């Protein structure tokens, strides 16, 4: 059942808001995000939790609304007009994403529910087919739980050893610890976060890829915090698998993707079984569909793929290098301003080594108390361990407050945060 991956389909995503390569203007960008617009009689939302999920521009909301109001139909099945349009739009999103991350072909892009499912897909499908007792998996101390737990399950099931690249007190990977962990040749796969969701640390993926490959292992990366914020090219990074999620990159929840080298994906058994992932089904056995549909069982998130396509269009219009520069400027500004708050301790590396994430503790005041005081002024931050308990344990802290940025964040947001922190200190003095 050969299929054409459509491009330039009907239902093309809404055009980017600004002409490509226009000078970056966060204030104008912000106007595209309905949730951030002032509402009469309401406190403005000061949103500093973009590492948890980003806000969505109007173009994304419109694209999904348009799909549901004009073209809603199941994909890859119907032979009527809107079903074909929906299929084309879904596949167009895949092609768009493939281009966005530098994939060799859309065949290498598998839609999933989110990064977590993409990482689980690798662990279940690749891991179960390739790992034996005595093999090892290499992770790091700064992983999100989504890049720890699937491997823990696999390791327990297969008698596989988990190894970890340690982290320094400044929240950077200790690459000197890499060679001894790879020396015995038992590591078959390494899975490493690209940008830490807590520390903001940008890890040197290309350098890690080189050493991991030299040891005969594969490299998967968790790009949940990088693809939404900076230019990412899978071939330049030199990784073998990459997991990403739409909702952190201005797109809707409910869709993410796994990118993998075609030869690896082809050799892997399916992950979930069901409709669409098969070529032919008999009562006793089935034959699998070709890539990438082999890994897409059941009806996929169609509207979400269309929303993601619009989000990528929007980000491309801004320019990912400009988005990243904006993030980093805000981080540098935040670190400078936060350093003036008494008792505040920043965690993580220097501004030059991080993306748009700044986490800290405020004396003995619990992160939840800080966040509650900030919330009363309409300031949304994350408080807790941010799904990275081992990272916090390594740093000897229970919980942190985290401010994180995206293209619509402004220096005023950080000023409001700093004022709120002074207030929190007063309340709990």
């Amino acid at each position, binding site marked *: 059942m050969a299929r054409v991956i459509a491009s330039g389909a009907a239902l093309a995503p809404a055009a980017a808001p600004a002409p490509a390569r226009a000078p970056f203007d966060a204030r104008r960008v912000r106007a595209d995000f309905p949730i951030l617009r002032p509402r009469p009689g309401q406190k403005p939302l000061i949103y500093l939790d973009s590492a948890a999920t980003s806000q969505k521009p109007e173009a994304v909301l419109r694209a999904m609304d348009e799909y549901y109001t004009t073209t809603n139909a199941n994909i890859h099945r119907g032979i009527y007009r809107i079903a074909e349009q929906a299929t084309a739009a879904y596949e167009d999103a895949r092609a768009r994403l493939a281009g966005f991350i530098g994939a060799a072909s859309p065949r290498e892009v598998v839609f999933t529910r989110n990064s977590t499912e993409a990482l689980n897909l690798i662990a279940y499908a690749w891991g179960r087919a390739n790992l034996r007792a005595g093999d090892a998996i290499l992770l790091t101390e700064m992983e999100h739980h989504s890049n720890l737990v699937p491997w823990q399950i696999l390791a327990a099931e297969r008698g596989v050893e988990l190894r970890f690249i340690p982290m320094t007190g400044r929240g950077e990977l200790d690459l000197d610890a890499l060679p001894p962990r790879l020396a015995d040749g038992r590591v078959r796969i390494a899975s490493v976060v690209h940008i830490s969701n807590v520390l903001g640390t940008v890890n040197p993926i290309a350098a890690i890829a080189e050493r991991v490959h030299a040891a005969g292992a594969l490299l998967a990366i968790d790009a949940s915090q990088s693809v939404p914020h900076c230019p990412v090219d899978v071939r330049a990074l030199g990784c073998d698998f990459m997991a990403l999620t739409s909702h952190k990159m201005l797109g809707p929840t409910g869709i993410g993707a796994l990118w993998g080298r075609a030869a690896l994906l082809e050799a892997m058994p399916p992950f979930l079984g069901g409709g669409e992932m098969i070529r032919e089904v008999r009562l006793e056995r089935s034959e699998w569909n070709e890539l990438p549909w082999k890994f897409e069982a059941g009806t996929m998130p169609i509207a979400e793929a269309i929303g993601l396509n619009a989000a990528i269009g929007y980000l491309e219009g801004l320019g990912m290098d400009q988005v990243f520069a904006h993030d980093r400027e805000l981080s540098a500004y935040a670190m400078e301003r936060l350093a003036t708050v008494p008792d505040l301790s920043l965690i993580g590396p220097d501004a030059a080594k991080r993306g748009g994430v700044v986490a800290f503790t405020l004396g003995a005041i*619990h992160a*939840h108390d800080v966040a509650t*005081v900030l919330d*009363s002024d309409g300031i949304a931050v994350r408080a807790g*361990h941010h799904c990275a308990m081992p990272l916090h344990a390594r740093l000897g802290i*229970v*919980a942190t407050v985290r401010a994180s940025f995206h293209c619509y964040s402004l220096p005023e947001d950080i000023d409001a945060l700093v004022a709120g922190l002074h*207030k929190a200190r007063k*309340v*709990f003095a």
Partner: protein
Amino acid sequence: MSGGWDEIYRENILEHYKHPRHHGTLEHPDITYEDANPLCGDHIRMDLKVRDGRVEDVRFSGHGCSISQASASMLCERIAGQPLEEIKRIGRDDVLEMLGIELGPVRLKCALLALKTLKAGVYGITQWPGEGEGS
């Protein structure tokens, strides 16, 4: 979450947080139990001295946010001298009433940790063989 910080952090919560009652541990407690809320790192230990089915003395220790620590302090104040049976009757609404605030689902866990710890400790001891029912 609704309300300003002045509303959420009512004076009595801050007062209990900054000056907790019954804070510390007991040397030879009849009941001791600890529990944690791993989501935010709140940790509470409750020590009780029991005589004739009554809470003769109670201490709490641990760390966490103001809501978790203040509710532990208030709860200790409430149960000191009371029959153990009374502890079984204390429910979530009683804790919220003591705190005097409404809480969202995340902070609700902070507020109820002390009660959860206390009940686990008390129910635990009543289930031990050889102990009289309800004491």
